[in-house]
């Protein structure tokens, strides 16, 4: 018994694996069914490149922009990893949109899969929030004013707008407080929520199966 067999036997992962990967899929599905998988791969790319970026990024008012410059110019492979993070985020959002169009067109949202559609929409919303919070982090003029405008939209809600604005910004203006909480949302809160929701998404796909093409 070599070490790999020993590991597989003790870990008892094989049956779980079989459940995930050895599944029957209906006849006649096309490459349009790949967009969900592409989106998940893009999410993994974002996640891993983000892990590397967080090693060098400093979420403070004075250091944020300088640290981005350092990542771009001094850190080995920094430019490449930042590029991967940016482009896989773009691919992620585009492929989620294509994925939801595919689900809509093939009517795969119908019972018993309606809850999966709801979870998917939640994932999409939080991915958009990831994009919004990530846009502030370079802390340059474009980032700052985009966040001012974006949060002002939430602030224009009647009656509760100003309170919501304070909750989002942590101050009357977009400031260092906003930067640090957006960083926390971007790297801790939203990714953990997304991972939970994705687990639910995949669990339901596994249990309910892929819908038959029309």
């Amino acid at each position, binding site marked *: 018994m070599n070490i790999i067999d020993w590991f597989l036997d003790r870990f008892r992962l094989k049956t779980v694996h079989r459940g995930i990967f050895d599944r029957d899929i209906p006849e006649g599905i096309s490459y349009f069914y790949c967009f969900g998988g592409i989106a998940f791969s893009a999410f993994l790319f974002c996640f891993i490149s983000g892990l590397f970026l967080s090693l060098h990024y400093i979420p403070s008012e004075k250091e944020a922009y300088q640290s981005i410059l350092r990542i771009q110019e001094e850190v080995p492979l920094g430019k490449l990893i930042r590029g991967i993070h940016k482009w896989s985020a773009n691919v992620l959002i585009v492929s989620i949109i294509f994925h939801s169009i595919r689900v809509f067109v093939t009517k795969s949202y119908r019972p018993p899969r309606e809850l999966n559609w709801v979870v998917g929409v939640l994932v999409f919303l939080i991915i958009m929030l990831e994009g919004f919070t990530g846009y502030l982090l370079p802390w340059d003029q474009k980032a700052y*004013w985009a966040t001012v405008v974006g949060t002002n939209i939430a602030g224009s809600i009647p009656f509760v707008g100003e309170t919501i604005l304070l909750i989002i910004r942590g*101050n009357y203006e977009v400031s260092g407080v906003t930067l640090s*909480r957006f960083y926390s949302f971007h790297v801790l809160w939203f990714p953990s929520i997304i991972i939970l929701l994705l687990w639910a998404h995949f669990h339901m796909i596994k249990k309910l199966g892929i819908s038959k093409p029309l």
Partner: protein
Amino acid sequence: MSINKQLEKINRRVFLKKVIKSFFLVISLILPFIWLTILKPKNPKRRDFKFFEIPKDKYPKEGLKKVDIKIDEKKYFKIFLVNRNDNSLIALSPVCTHLGCFVNFNRYNNEFICPCHGGRYDIEGRVITGPPKENLQRLPVKIENDKIYVGLII
């Protein structure tokens, strides 16, 4: 006797289940409140104006001029200086009062136009049409030692 004991056991089990359930329910209700109270600042402060010098060659002789105010080595902030006909100077913030986009000045119509939702202001920053309700903010200007300073919120 034994049936009674079994019933007692079941009752205890039901009771414990309810206790655990209500425990998690209370926690899940408390957490959002904690989240909101942590995010909402206790005593938020509005920032004060900091004054920056306007270089002499940037004063508009007539009409309007877009001026970049140097804040530090790499940072500039764009403002509009307007020379009114009675030879007084006003400084206008370029931030639209609707949602905070930067307005542009249109020289043909002599008015500011916001690119986001089409809010329009006249040359002194008063609203003509569009979604904005307030006029463009007039930045405080002060004169010290023959130099003009403009106040910005940075």
